[in-house]
């Protein structure tokens, strides 16, 4: 099959702000219908927009995170069309001076890295939400005017996998930079995909698949649409520019409407909002508040020898990843990440807590890891005392003592136990002397049992081997 697939993606994200883009109405998901509204959100006669600078700065952050060139002097435009969810009969957006242009997102599919070009990122307002029944429609204006950014890619993706990787990567970036909560199910992140296939260098006619409900469906929808288009071409047909949607149950894309030639939105500069200029201080301030992004974190984890599985787990657990950023440079990151992603994460999931809500300070954890390194603590003991470390401020030694574990480091008392165990297990002793290594492990286990796991394993090993080879 020699068709080449080309995919471009438009993503709308609601910005995490307290108030709306052009009014002081509250921005909050899940409030009682039509409770977060002002005369501006209703498109009331005589009302005029105000400008939410916080939202602009968040959009700026997004543009910077996506490596865009910034339009420091920007204005807004009106996009005119009629729809009941559009109270003013126009949407305020940025057609000519998007806040960011010419950016990119780095993805990786099957180990192959690729840069996906960002055509532009612009600021606009959301519409109201409609609910339709057979005989009527209801409108909730809480969403009307919520700040959005629309991120438009170049047609740089050539497979469902690349498209999914892009959406995933974008979502990760926006989440990490605290720009949007990116909940596709709640509609705070919405995904429109443009798909075409062609046998030549010229791009084929594209279909737009609107509002796909999950990242996996992005891949599935593209796959199905590609199959559909190839089938049409193979049967000698042509593809029209059209808007489709993905029917999850039917597992295929279905036609919504054929696009009329030259969709006429009658764009013109919004006369109610003067030019807005980002200052150097704005730029600096926003630049400074961008958190360490996933790629940088991954690079750091790799340097520290953390496994790829753990790298991904950390990225998915923002809390723990942030927590780990506070660790001292010389820490054993492999051990630390194992502890965090193992028992600590299990505890956090079980108790629905965040790491900062526990008593496990980074200082305490650092000490734990050091003790493990030095053999002063075993994983087994750690498991036993972890909950206390998480829930109390007690020092590690105290916690160990409280659990009735005596840390056995003095050679004399340990030697007593070693001898005792050797005497009680003559078969194992002769097995060891006959070259069976397993016997040593068994004897070790017996000693640890005797000492309730309190013995320093390295020391025990040393003493045992000495004693056996005497």
């Amino acid at each position, binding site marked *: 099959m020699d068709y080449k697939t080309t995919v471009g993606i438009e993503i709308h994200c609601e910005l995490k702000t307290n108030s709306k883009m052009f009014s002081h109405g509250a921005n909050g998901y899940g409030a009682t219908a039509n409770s977060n509204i002002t*005369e501006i959100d209703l498109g*009331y*006669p005589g009302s*005029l927009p*105000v400008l939410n600078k916080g939202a602009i700065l968040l959009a700026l952050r997004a543009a910077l995170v996506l490596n865009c060139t910034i339009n420091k002097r920007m204005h807004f435009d009106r996009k005119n069309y009629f729809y009941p969810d559009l109270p003013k009969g*126009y949407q305020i957006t940025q057609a000519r001076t998007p806040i960011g242009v010419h950016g990119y997102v780095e993805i990786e599919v099957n180990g192959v890295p690729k840069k996906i070009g960002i055509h532009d990122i612009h600021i606009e307002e959301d519409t109201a939400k409609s609910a339709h029944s057979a005989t009527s429609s209801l409108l909730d204006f809480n969403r009307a005017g919520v700040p959005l950014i629309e991120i438009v890619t170049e047609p740089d993706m050539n497979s469902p996998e690349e498209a999914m990787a892009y959406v995933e990567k974008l979502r990760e970036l926006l989440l990490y930079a605290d720009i949007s909560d990116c909940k596709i199910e709640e509609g705070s992140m919405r995904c429109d995909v443009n798909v075409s296939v062609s046998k030549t260098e010229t791009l084929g006619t594209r279909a737009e698949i609107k509002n796909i409900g999950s990242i996996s469906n992005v891949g599935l929808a593209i796959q199905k649409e590609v199959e559909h288009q190839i089938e049409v071409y193979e049967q000698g047909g042509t593809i029209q520019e059209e808007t489709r949607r993905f029917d999850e149950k039917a597992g295929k894309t279905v036609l919504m409407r054929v696009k009329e030639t030259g969709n006429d939105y009658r764009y013109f500069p919004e*006369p*109610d909002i*003067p030019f807005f200029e980002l200052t150097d201080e704005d730029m600096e301030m926003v630049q400074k508040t961008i958190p360490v992004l996933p790629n940088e974190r991954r690079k750091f984890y790799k340097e520290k020898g953390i496994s790829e599985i753990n790298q991904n787990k950390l990225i998915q657990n923002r809390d723990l990843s942030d927590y780990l950023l506070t660790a001292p440079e010389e820490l054993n990151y492999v051990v630390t990440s194992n502890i965090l992603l193992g028992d600590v994460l299990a505890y956090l999931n079980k108790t629905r807590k965040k790491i900062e809500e526990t008593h496990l300070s980074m200082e305490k954890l650092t000490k734990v890891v050091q003790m493990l390194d030095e053999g002063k603590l075993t994983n087994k003991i750690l498991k036993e005392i972890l909950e206390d470390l998480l829930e109390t401020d007690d020092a590690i030694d105290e916690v160990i003592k409280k659990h009735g574990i005596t840390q056995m480091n003095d050679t004399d008392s340990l030697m007593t136990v070693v001898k005792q165990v050797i005497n009680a297990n003559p078969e194992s002793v002769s097995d060891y002397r006959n070259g069976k290594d397993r016997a040593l492990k068994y004897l070790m286990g017996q000693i640890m049992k005797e000492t309730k796991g309190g013995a320093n394993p390295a020391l025990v090993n040393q003493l045992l081997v000495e004693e056996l080879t005497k």
Partner: protein
Amino acid sequence: MNNYLDLSILELHTLLKEGKVTPLQLVLEAFDRIENEKDLNAFITLNKEEALKEAKALEGKEVDNPLFGIPIAVKDNILTNDLRTTCASKILENFIPIYDATVVQKLKEKHMIIVGKTNMDEFAMGSTSRTSYFGAPKNPWNKTKITGGSSGGSAATIAARLVPLALGTDTGGSIRQPASYCGLVGMKPTYGRVSRYGLVAFGSSLDQIGPMTRNVMENALLLNVIQGQDDHDLTSSYHELEDYTRLIGKDIKGMKVGLPNYFMSDIVDSSIKQKIEDLVALLETHGVTVERMDIDYIENAVTLYQIIAMGEASSNLARFDGVRYGYRAENPENVEDLYLRTREEGFGDEVKRRIMVGSYLLSGENAKIYYDKALSIRDDMKKSFEKAFEKYDFIIGPTTCSVAYDLSESTDDPMRSFLDDVLVIPVNMAGLPGLNLPIGFNDEHMPIGLHIIGRAFDEARMYQFASYLEQTLKLELDPKGVK
């Protein structure tokens, strides 16, 4: 029956302060006058009950400002909380606002009393007030004549001395032109001087609210109240607040005035040109230099206006769709039918015409061909005004090409309406302040007005200039006084 409302506001202020007259007396007298002149059709909605209540509530309160207790009329495209605001359109026939426009709030803070909402062209689109869904208002100087428009109701109210003060709005001359036709003082302030919040938008980059009054002093007093930056209007200016009366009474000797040749061309009636010539002579005897000159692009102003104002209007009026407020067509079959019939039944012809033209001008490539081009020529025109103001204190000319004409004159020619405003539109395009001052009458005793154009935010000196002429001319501007 006392005739308190023939007194000046400063005289009334003294009487109010001394307790010799109460706000209630003034309001009652205003409603008597309105009732007696009902046939002027100056008001769409009266606020009698509420006005009387407010007037009573003011009794015993400290008379803390010159406009305390003074009745005022407000044009019906400015939102008044709980008081019907129609824009003279069927589509808002029963529309009761849920908030006050910023200017209305300011009037209320000064304890002024709103007697009602004045008639106008539908959505301020027109130059005769005849596009009103509620019928045209009549000119108090001759009730067979138009008031001009779109602030025709406010103009009639002031000319007939129903109340001393009114608010109008001016997108392309809608304060100054009816002020000229009805013989009163009308000021369109610098764009941004007065908040537009709560003014139902027509041409957003041009609209400005302004005072319409019997004389210059009272005009300045009202601008004092309504001026100022407003957080609700991003286009309102941070220019500092001023006392606009402060230069009134000062001499104008040594001032230099430009009179553009275009303003004295064949488009203007000869009787009006003669009055301007007379005025020029008068100015010169008072030590003012007047020079004929040219301002580039002003002859293009109407074309620019049609593109910009209609483009903006087509978008601004999209919100009237029957979904959330206002008129809604009965039993719509579907959403499209709801839109089509609501707007078809709710809007009048002139409004529809402008929406269609505006939509066309913004459509596809036209936005670049027309709208962008218009914006750029508009900039050039602004610059040519700025250049003129390097040399002159004011630009003057006639406000209108003719005096008020017959109400019965045909409305078939849609271009006529723009020609009525051809001399006043350049001011909106450049965002400058413009003022109409009555300077005389024609043979049929219909008022003729002088148009004074100032530099941006130079309203105080315009009042100084206008007031000086007013005091020199001493015209009888009360139609009752003439009969």
